[in-house]
């Protein structure tokens, strides 16, 4: 064995370096996938809330442009970005072009968002936001 190789192995033993357990990596990967899933679901909730707002806008002209919640749009962008970053951290996520990943995430979030809107989740989310202290803080009383 070469001098360098010997020094490296000695260094590992002297520093008491241990293998991280397999469980550590399984938990880390699970957290990354869970964060990805949560980001997609929250993105879908944002989209369903936007659909609820748009529906009201169609029914009540003027409402749409006065009260369109840019916050839900910003929330969608944020959650899609988080989902993208988490997917990049997975074992194979780096192999795909960013544009395709974002498109794929948007498609899944949009389809889920439609389902959530059909179930009334978007209306609940928008109602919760309207009554929240954040809404009063951001938009005034």
């Amino acid at each position, binding site marked *: *064995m*070469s001098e*360098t*190789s010997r*020094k*490296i*192995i000695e*260094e*590992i033993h002297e*520093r008491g*370096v*241990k*293998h*991280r*357990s*397999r469980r*550590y*990596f399984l938990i880390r990967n699970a957290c990354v996938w869970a964060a990805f899933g949560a980001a997609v679901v929250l993105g879908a909730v944002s989209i369903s809330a936007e659909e609820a707002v748009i529906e009201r806008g169609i029914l009540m002209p003027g409402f749409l442009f006065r009260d369109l919640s840019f916050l839900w749009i910003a929330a969608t962008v944020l959650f899609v970005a988080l989902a993208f970053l988490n997917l*990049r951290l997975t*074992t194979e996520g*780096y*192999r*795909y*072009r*960013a544009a395709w990943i974002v498109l794929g995430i948007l498609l899944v979030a949009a389809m889920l968002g439609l389902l959530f809107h059909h179930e009334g989740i978007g209306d609940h989310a928008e109602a919760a936001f309207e009554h929240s202290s954040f809404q009063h803080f951001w938009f005034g009383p």
Partner: protein
Amino acid sequence: MDAALARAMNHGEPLPFINGAESADFITDERLAVAALEDDRAYEFLVERYEKKLQRYIMRFIGCGMEDARDIVQESFVNAYRNLAGFDPDLKFSAWIYRIAHNEAVSHVRRLAARPTVVMEDEQFESLASELNVERDISRAMEAEHIRRAIGRLDSKYRDVIVLRYLEEKTYEEISDILRKPRGSVSSLISRAKEHLAELIRADHPTIH
């Protein structure tokens, strides 16, 4: 893990390839990496296989001296040992260890704000020079020197791919795994890197077309 390896480790027997480095040559890196989780002797063989290659890669990538390269290689192997359970045997071990070494080298450069120079062999210079189409009009010795200096002046993202492709002779797939970028992005980066490199060389020698 194969039966012979498992049996040897379970009974504290010499590993099947322990008699000499030659007999270990037939054992793949990926099998050694899996075996190394349970027996440090397998890791010693991996270190032996890669320490010179990584040293040379780091010296080319960031233009540091032998001592710095050895320190970086040492840190890389310590990190790799710590994270060995996270190695996916479906990936090439070579790409994985190069990735760790690459990240260590980048950290080193950030700490020291080093300006790299590049070491290349003649055959590698020929391969790169012919792709840049700057072979005419200047002597070969001057050409190699200009290419070396020009590579050192490239942005790190372009230098990365030029060093891996032309000096370390990695495939596009391997570069994709090392840098964790899509294969298409690697291809675009290499293309743009060659353009920038050719521009830098021509800027130094306006007579070259």
